[in-house]
């Protein structure tokens, strides 16, 4: 090919190429995307299979070609089929054995195989704004295709129609900022280099992308290499006196280097690089320099020094590369993505570029979305898009419904953005304000299973190894931060360590020589800022809430359990068939094994490592099995009770918290009296949970065990004077009155007859009162009470039971199994709907006016906030409305005793010791924390009992609880056999038939048989043995 000698020749070449392209577009085009990730997933085989099939069947009118990566990394291999008639189809997760069917049905039959394609209107594709990655759908090895899409027109425009200053001015108007991370205005940098004296200057492309999990630049170099070449050539012209450019590309990107090399050779052949470009006097050459793999070489001064052939250490600025850069000459150095943006800014104009983005951050940005996200991959969005939109809408949220905890932004030197801040628009300033950085665009999504101390440690480990070692703060400071974090994650940290870390982090960030050291403390400082309580949990409670920091626990299930139950122990005993021992092991720590075996929210199961294989072990069901079996067999729990003591303690409230505290105190010999206002003991267990979930007989049997220890439970006794109790000689008072008061919606009509509250409704039913249930019952809310009320209503004769919830199903706080069961029983769910008014006739409820909701921005919980859709109101008939939107403690009896109440009527106490400001008065359970779960209430009761014991003995409070359950029971330390670790789904408990459920209050779940239980228990991986770590 003769080099192009004028802009006109380039234009006629463009017309030629367009013609070629138009011919191609008349055929069915099969484009196989061959990025690095595609190839590693087998895209080459898919390509070969298509070629073979098309050739074998002699299909005319089909073109099979290569294309670049379009960012669907988790769905590779990806193939686009464009049918001139039928339009575009995107096939994902392909393998070569699926090719034949696509050829049959789609290429031959004209009908796309929908099962394997990704809908083009999915948010993943729809919400992106593809600009930098605009050419990824073509063969990057063909310069003609690039030219057909106006490639090199911008260069021609600049060379023949613009003065260098005008080029810089255009870029300035576009508002482009450096995409490498710091976001320095690109045109300003160019201006510096242009005005810096020198007759030899350089331009350099920074392609040393080193952040773990980031590969935006690789995709551009592999998919759109000419845009980088063209961008650099335009800038070389704009700056003047530049004849040579270098592309510093990390050597770990062989395909990027190969593609760019090929593109450079093509550009040279076409006369678009070299001397006399397009017939002008302009000369520009470009060479690739493969980087040797040091992260720090992404720092501009280090990169330039490395380019000179020396050890890639950064140097102190000033002088800046704009004045003294490569070989001491003025040098512009920009990131791959920055370069790639230049041609379209010049060709389409600054206004086009700045049409998207925010006021100070214009244009689009590519991001690498990785970690705990459903659609990991490469995305391109306008700057200013919120983190939540990227993670939830485009990324599809976190897998397995786990809760988003934070997003690490900017790679190992970035910081975390906590879930409560996901509304933040991703632009340079907003991200920095949260303590993270834009960086080159890595987004690592982390869910509740990520420990923030561990995250900080991990990233510091990376920067520690990648520091060049030149300046002291970075070289020595990062390892010190890591060592301190290490001791925290081993439970050996102190609160003073947090100050030490903050101080050191700030010093390293401020006084390090280069960007690496200056940003390395970001993960530490930002996690400390946003997740301080998690650090405190490690230090004070010796707990890792995410169950990651191994040194703090034996097994993640036990560590996550609010009462620290020895789960591997009892599961192992079940496996061995030692059911009685298993029961003893549970009961000595947990006073309500049968209850918890039924209604525990089982956080243990979400951390169970078996869950990473296929499904977690049915820990809750096993507990119920062994507890029920023991009772059936008459096995008794025989704890060692201490010598009786003189000291008397009074507990107000016979719920799970109060009774657990009573249990522990009585075991230690204290004389415990429990006052209960209701006619039954058990609190919410007795009056909140329906019979079909927790039979009263079982609850009462376990309460009887507590009574058996000598606890005096006085029913129907309301307390309203705390001080007098202390005066009566009680050494301590524990308030454990729960949260028995329902919240109101605050809409018109709540006073109508037929409107009630779930708490009241369930309590009255549980107390055996005759409650009239309507025919068409509406329940408002999404928690367990709402589900219970709706299901109970069906059992009490309602013809229809409806649940109205203002968000989506995945947002419901109720236990997932309960929602499922309600659906099975025929409860109607109305999501994204909220009542606005209760309609009435003659003082009685007649219907409900509702409004449809839409989810908009994210709230503090990381969920999207519902907003009413105007004009979507509708009415529906109902004769009973049960409100279940929330509950709060009724603490009206606390007055003027020095015991303070706080938000939602809760009683204020130290979170760890549960001591109130009033000496001798303690508080536990929902009364202190607001509505929580049964098991958390039990744990709180045990905490309170421990504090009360120390208080009575005149000892200092301790933040750590010593719970019961130290009587040793031998547990096998035989790890699971290899066969037991093979994939095997959980053994399901049998349920009574659906037909029987709504007719009675019979318990739905049946128990395991001993054989089933032993089989299920054998799935336990015995993490407590510490093998394989």
């Amino acid at each position, binding site marked *: 090919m003769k080099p192009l000698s004028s802009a006109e020749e380039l234009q006629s070449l463009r017309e030629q190429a367009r013609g070629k392209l138009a011919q191609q577009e008349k055929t069915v085009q099969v484009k196989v995307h061959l990025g690095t990730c595609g190839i590693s997933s087998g895209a080459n085989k898919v390509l070969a299979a298509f070629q073979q099939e098309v050739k074998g069947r002699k299909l005319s009118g089909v073109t099979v070609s290569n294309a670049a990566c379009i960012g669907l990394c988790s769905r590779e291999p990806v193939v686009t089929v464009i049918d001139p008639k039928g339009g575009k189809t995107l096939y994902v997760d392909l393998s070569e054995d699926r090719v034949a069917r696509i050829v049959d049905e789609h290429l031959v039959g004209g009908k796309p195989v929908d099962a394997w394609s990704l809908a083009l209107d999915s948010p993943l594709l729809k919400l992106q704004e593809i600009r930098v990655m605009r050419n990824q759908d073509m063969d990057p090895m063909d310069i003609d295709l690039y030219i057909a899409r106006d490639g090199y027109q911008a260069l021609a425009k600049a060379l023949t129609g613009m003065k260098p200053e005008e080029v810089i001015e255009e870029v300035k108007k576009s508002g482009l900022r450096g995409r490498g991370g710091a976001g320095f205005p690109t045109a300003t940098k160019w201006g510096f280099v242009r005005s810096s004296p020198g007759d030899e200057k350089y331009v350099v492309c920074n392609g040393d992308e080193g952040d773990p999990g980031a590969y935006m630049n690789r995709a551009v170099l592999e998919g759109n290499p000419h845009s980088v070449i063209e961008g650099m050539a335009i800038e070389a012209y704009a700056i003047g006196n530049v004849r040579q450019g270098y592309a510093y590309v990390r050597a770990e990107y062989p395909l990027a280097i190969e593609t760019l090399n090929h593109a450079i050779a093509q550009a040279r052949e076409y006369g678009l690089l070299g001397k006399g470009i397009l017939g002008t006097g302009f000369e520009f050459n470009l060479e690739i320099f493969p980087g040797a793999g040091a992260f720090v070489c992404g720092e501009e001064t280090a990169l330039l020094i490395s380019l000179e052939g020396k050890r890639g250490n950064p140097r*102190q600025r000033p002088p800046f590369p704009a004045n003294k850069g490569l070989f001491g000459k003025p040098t512009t150095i920009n990131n791959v993505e920055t370069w790639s943006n230049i041609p379209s800014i010049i060709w389409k104009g600054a206004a086009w570029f700045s049409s998207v983005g925010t006021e100070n951050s214009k244009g689009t940005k590519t991001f690498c979305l990785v970690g705990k996200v459903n659609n990991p991959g490469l995305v391109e969005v306008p700057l200013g898009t919120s983190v939540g939109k990227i993670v939830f809408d485009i990324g599809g949220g976190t897998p397995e419904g786990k809760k988003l905890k934070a997003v690490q932004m900017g790679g190992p030197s970035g910081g975390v953005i906590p879930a409560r801040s996901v509304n933040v628009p991703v632009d340079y300033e907003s991200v920095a304000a949260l303590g993270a950085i834009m960086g080159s665009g890595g987004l690592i999504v982390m869910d509740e299973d990520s420990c923030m101390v561990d995250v900080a440690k991990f990233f510091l480990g990376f920067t520690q190894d990648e520091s060049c070692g030149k*300046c*002291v703060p970075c*070289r*020595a400071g990062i390892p010190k931060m890591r060592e301190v974090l290490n001791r925290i994650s081993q439970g050996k940290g102190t609160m003073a360590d947090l100050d030490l870390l903050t101080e050191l982090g700030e*010093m390293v960030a401020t006084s*390090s020589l280069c960007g690496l050291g200056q940003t390395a403390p970001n993960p530490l400082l930002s996690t400390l800022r946003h997740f301080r309580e998690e650090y405190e949990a490690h230090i004070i409670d010796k707990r890792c809430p995410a169950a990651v920091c191994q040194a703090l626990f034996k097994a993640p299930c036990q560590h996550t359990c609010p009462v620290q139950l020895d789960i591997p122990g009892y599961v192992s005993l079940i496996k061995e068939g030692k059911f009685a021992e298993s029961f003893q092991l549970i009961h000595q720590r947990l006073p309500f094994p049968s209850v918890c075996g039924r209604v525990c929210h089982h956080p243990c199961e979400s951390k169970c490592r078996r869950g990473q294989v296929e499904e977690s072990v049915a820990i809750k069901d096993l507990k119920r099995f062994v507890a029920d079996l023991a009772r059936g067999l008459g096995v008794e729990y025989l704890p060692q009770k201490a010598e009786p003591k003189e000291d008397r303690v009074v507990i107000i409230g016979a719920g799970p918290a109060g009774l657990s505290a009573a249990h522990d105190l009585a075991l230690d010999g204290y004389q415990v009296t429990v006052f209960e206002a209701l006619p039954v003991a058990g609190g919410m267990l007795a009056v909140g949970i329906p019979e079909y979930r927790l039979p009263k007989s079982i609850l009462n049997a376990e309460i009887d065990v507590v009574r058996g220890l000598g606890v005096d439970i006085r029913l129907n006794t309301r307390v309203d004077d705390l001080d007098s109790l202390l005066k009566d000689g009680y050494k301590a008072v524990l308030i454990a009155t729960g949260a028995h008061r329902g919240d109101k919606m605050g809409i018109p009509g709540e006073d109508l007859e037929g409107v009630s509250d779930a708490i009241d409704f369930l309590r009255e039913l549980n107390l055996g009162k005759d409650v009239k249930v309507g025919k068409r019952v509406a329940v408002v809310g999404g928690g367990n009470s709402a589900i219970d009320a709706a299901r109970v209503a069906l059992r009490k004769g309602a013809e229809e039971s409806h649940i109205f919830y203002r968000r989506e199903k995945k947002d419901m706080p109720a236990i997932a199994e309960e929602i499922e069961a309600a659906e099975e029983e025929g409860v109607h769910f109305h999501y994204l709907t909220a009542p606005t008014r209760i309609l009435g006739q003659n003082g009685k409820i007649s219907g409900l006016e509702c409004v449809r909701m839409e989810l908009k921005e994210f709230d503090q919980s990381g969920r999207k906030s519902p907003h009413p859709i105007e004009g979507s109101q509708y009415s529906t008939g109902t004769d009973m409305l049960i409100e279940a939107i929330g509950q709060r403690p009724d603490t009206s009896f606390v007055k003027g005793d020095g015991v303070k109440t706080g938000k939602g009527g809760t009683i204020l106490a130290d979170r760890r010791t549960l001591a109130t400001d009033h000496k001798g008065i303690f508080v536990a359970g929902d009364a202190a924390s607001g509505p929580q779960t049964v098991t958390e209430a039990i744990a709180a009761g045990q905490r309170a009992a421990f504090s009360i014991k120390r208080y009575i003995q005149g000892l200092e409070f301790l933040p750590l609880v010593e719970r019961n359950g130290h009587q040793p029971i031998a547990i096998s330390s035989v790890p699971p056999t290899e066969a037991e670790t093979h994939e095997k789904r959980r053994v399901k408990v049998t349920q009574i038939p659906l037909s029987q459920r709504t007719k009675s209050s019979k318990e739905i779940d049946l128990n395991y048989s001993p054989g089933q239980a032993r089989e299920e228990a054998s799935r336990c991986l015995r993490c407590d043995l510490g093998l394989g770590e």
Partner: protein
Amino acid sequence: MKELTLSINDKQVKGKEGNTVLDVCRANDIFVPTLCHLEGLADVGACRMCVVEIEKERRPIPACTYPAREGLVVRTSTERLEKYRRQTLELLFTERNHFCFFCAASGECELQGLAYHYRMDHVRYPYTFPNLPTDALNDYLVLDHNRCILCGRCVRVCGEVVGNHTLDFSKRGWRTMVTADLDQPLGESSCISCGACVQACPTGALFSKVSAYRGRASEGKFVRSVCSMCSVACDINVLVKDNNIVRIDGVNLTGVNGQLCVKGRFQQVETVRPRIATPLISRKKGTARSASWKEALDLAATEIDKCLSRHGAGSIAGLVSTRCPSETVEAFAGLMRNTVGTSALDTLDGSTYRTLVQGITASGGNGQGLSIERPLESILEADCVLVIGADLLKSHPAAGCYVLRARSRSKAQLLVIDPKQNDLGIRADLWLRPSEDGVETVIKTLTRLLAPPGAGKSRKADTAAAQAAGVDGALLEEAAAKLKRATKVAVVFGEGILGRRNPRLVARLLQLASLMKPDGLKVISLKPRANSRGAWEMGIASQARVGRARPKLVYVLLGDDELMPEDWVAQAEQAEFLVVQASHASPLTEAADLVLPSPTWAEQAGTYVSLDGKVRRSQAVLQMAPGLKDDKDIIKELASRLGSALKERRQ
């Protein structure tokens, strides 16, 4: 240079354009702590101790790299800065194993000094206690990584000043280590043991084996003197404690003439040669006995007198070592010429001198003599250095380092012509290694290749000549091309040329040098001893009368020289009476009839003239050992005895 006004700590201070903020602070006596900074080395801003607050800069920035500008507002000691500095020190102390109580640098350690300055009584970070090796395989210096703070001063001094680039950093981050070559033990590396790194090291990471634990700076005193180990005559700072040499430092480590070499820095701290403590009289070989000064000097006077009267002044010859300072040489020459009246007087390296001046004369430089030579520093400005017949790194290591430095700093080309093993040769861009006899041919051929066009050139003849000399013709042409391209050539030659006693060879070499840009004859010859040039300039070595005299009595003033050309030994031994004045025992003192003890270089003051004509004065750094006399006094006493003897006889 333009003067600048800056505000530092709210005071207006002056600086010069090109200064860094640190320079201005130092010039104005404003304390700014530093660790990685060393005057004369490129600043790297690594230790972060000198961070200062500069208005409009977002973060604290090192003063050592920040260029001073008019109107700059600087603060050197804010609460935040002092806190960072203390933290930096804490980090350094916990990073490796700094145990001051058995460190050779304790008391002089800059890290320790700053810890005292900041009253660092404890550190809050966990100690790392790394298990790092100590490299003690070099004969003279030790690199203990446990005490290294990675400031890089050793690396920079080795590269920028010595030009040898032995030391560098290996690995990254907290694993970074100072390393020699590609991770060789120092003793097996390219290290030339000049010890510049030892002097540059702010802590005890690099220390001298010969000086360690002999005493601290605070316990002794530094005496400024001149090194007499070779004719570069470096300035030295000698640390003396209890009349012993503890250590020898370069006076201006990073400047010209201050880095020293293995001989100057290490080899003269402790001598193992047996000292001569009293005059010795030996009637028969191997029967030496101590004698009093009176007896010895009387004997000398008597023997000289006897010889004079029997054989005349011509039968007495005097030989003096050019390691002796000028005053001693002068006194000796005075004694021999004036008192004894003999003209048979020479220096031990007289023939070298005669070869050199005759060569200069033959090349057309009649009467110019040594004045055609250039100062040693001109090597540093050269863009090409041609070294002929000299193993500089062995014979004149400090001068050798000038060549390495030129090569390293200004990328000067290095050409070596030497048939012998040559340490510069292996570092050269081109090493022409002809046969022993081929040197002249190579010089001749190079001259022809460099001569203006048309001067009877024949490629064929050149190739044949090169072949005869045992050199690859292509290499020879490459060498010529390099010399032609260069704009500032320095030609250095030494023993390999001068030792051949062939003035024509010198003349040819000078002819070649005259073809070099910019102005030709930019030559430097390497003189054998510290004061060769000084002694030569007194005219002592102008004519070789000693050889022809076949003297009956020979008086050799050796000082603390240890070398003696072999033919002299033979001649001296043939004499009927041999007087040797020397500080240490040697074969020559063994052969002597009378030995007079000399003081060492360290025990006497004096003047030396360096190879390039610089006059340097040395001070006595030690008190003379009891019972010794200054060489000049010995000569004076002998002269006075002789004078009276002669007077007596004449009467």
